[in-house]
Structures are given as structure tokens and as C-alpha cells.
């Protein structure tokens, strides 16, 4: 299916059902992974429950060095 991830259209396997699986798919390792799913900001606990479907918009955000 196709997702809009961080502003880029990307094809991902249909087998991916949840945000957690999506994070695993991209092998994202940041200690703090913040996810916005279809404009809704998710609590970290929600990642495994939130379903992703074709056409969904996902933002992966993190903390980086800043002053």
C-alpha cells in the first residue's frame, strides 16, 4: 500500500498493520519516536494499536540537538 511518510509517498508491504510494525519496517531506533498519524499525534502507548491503511499520512518526529 502507499503511505505519505514525512512528506514522501512510499510503497510499503500490505503485511504492515500497525504503527509499531511500520517503525520496525523502517528499523527506526531513536530512543524517542514521536508519531503523528493522519494529523493526530499519538501517545507512545498507542503505536501498537493504531492501524495503518493505504493513503494514510504518517509523520515520524524525534528530539535532536537544539538550544
Amino acid at each position, binding site marked *: 500500500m502507499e503511505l505519505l*511518510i*514525512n*512528506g514522501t509517498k512510499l510503497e510499503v508491504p500490505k503485511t504492515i498493520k500497525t504503527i509499531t510494525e511500520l517503525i520496525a519496517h*523502517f*528499523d*527506526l*531506533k*531513536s*530512543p*524517542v*519516536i*514521536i*508519531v*503523528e498519524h493522519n494529523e493526530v*499525534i*499519538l*501517545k*507512545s502507548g498507542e503505536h501498537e494499536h493504531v492501524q495503518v491503511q493505504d493513503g494514510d499520512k504518517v*509523520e*515520524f*518526529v*524525534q*528530539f*535532536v*540537538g*537544539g*538550544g
Partner: protein
Amino acid sequence: MLKIGEYEFNSRLLLGTGKFPDFDIQRDAVLASETEVLTFAVRRMNIFEPSQPNFLDKIDLNKYKFLPNTAGAKTAEEAVRIAKLAQASNICHMIKVEIIGCDKTLLPDPIETLRASEMLLEEGFTVLTYTSDDVVLARHLEELGVHAVMPGASPIGSGQGIINPLNMSLIIEQSNIPVIVDAGIGSPKDAVYAMELGADAVLLNTAVSGANDPVKMAKAMKLAVESGRLSYEAGRIPIKRTATASSPIEGMSF
């Protein structure tokens, strides 16, 4: 004891985490500074570089309170969104309202800053607002209920120190909330000066991360903030135009 909202700190030095040569130097600098508060920025991940190292892996997350900033926002609404993203991290204790109104000077936008602070207070955030040294604006922020005002000493990263000590001390005198001098600190003498004026704390980043030896400078800043606070409490001598002998006059004509 520095109190910001519900938090209490022994250290009066808040440290930014941008632009260190590498994460090991940065970790050593953070430790040398003995800071208890670290600022961060919130940014999109690069999903094509899966395992990017992150400074958070280098430190004990339980030992620090985190103060993500809203840098990148040009409006109150953007700032609120960034704040909410930060909040979803579960390690966002406080939020630094930072809304830049000028790309060249990185000076804050007083109007959007005030709006964002009000909106974030309504959302229940512990709000520390980076602002200009406009004295009346600082009072408006306090009236809104922000948990600390953070007037800039001079433009971010410029290292010019406190250009306008009068405004800074007027803000300090009028405030019943912590005043944290943020931005523009270039060296320990600036940090000492801020504390001697009565600031409750200092927030800096480039002065340490950009030094030739960031770890040693972090130590210097720790000592500077302690020294400045002690000096403020000890009560400095008045400045006189003429001299005052430190050696006695009596018994001199021998």
C-alpha cells in the same frame, strides 16, 4: 534552589544540546556542566537513515528534566503543534516557547510569542518563554502565567553577552517568576554578569558547544554560574568614580 513550575533544581545552568563536535564530547560537557535541564529541538526523522545515533542514547534520561523548544515555528499555532509533538515523547517536562521573527537575527516575535505562551498555558504546559528584553512584554508574559521568562542577552549564538543590562535588571526586579537569561551568552564573564544582576538562571548552548574545548568550557560555565549567584547573594561593593585606599593612612609618615 531554583523552582520552575513544579520542578526544583540545584543547578542554575540550563544547557542546550545543539552543535557539539560529537556525542562523546557532548556527554562529557553535559556532565562537567552539572546541569539538570537539557533543551532539545523537535525535528522530522530521516527514515532512510534508519539507525541514526541520537544523543539521548548517551545519557541517563532519569537524571535530567527536558525542555524541548518550539524552534522552527513562525506562528503560535505552529509552536503549539511542535509542543504537542514534544509532549507525546513522554520526556517533555517543560516547553521553551521560541518563535523567531527574523531569520537574520533570530530575534523573537513578541506578538506570536505572547499568543503561543497563552495557548500553551491553557493546554497545561509548563511554559518557559524566550523573549526579547522588552520590559513590558516580560510583564505581560508573567501576567499570562508563564512559569519563567527567558529574555535574550543578545542574538542567539552571537556571543555578545548582555548588551542591555538595564532592561535585564528591570525585568529581574519586576518579576515574581524565575528570570532565565537565554541566548547571546559568549563566555563565563557574561554568565557571571547575568547572575550578578540577579537572574535566577542562565540558558546557553553555543558558548559551550562552540568552544575549542567544550568540556572545559562547560566546567567554566558551571563555576561561573555558581560564582555569579554567590556574588549576588554576597552583595558587591558600590562602583565609585574616585579611589578608596585599601591600605591605611595612619602611621604612614615614618
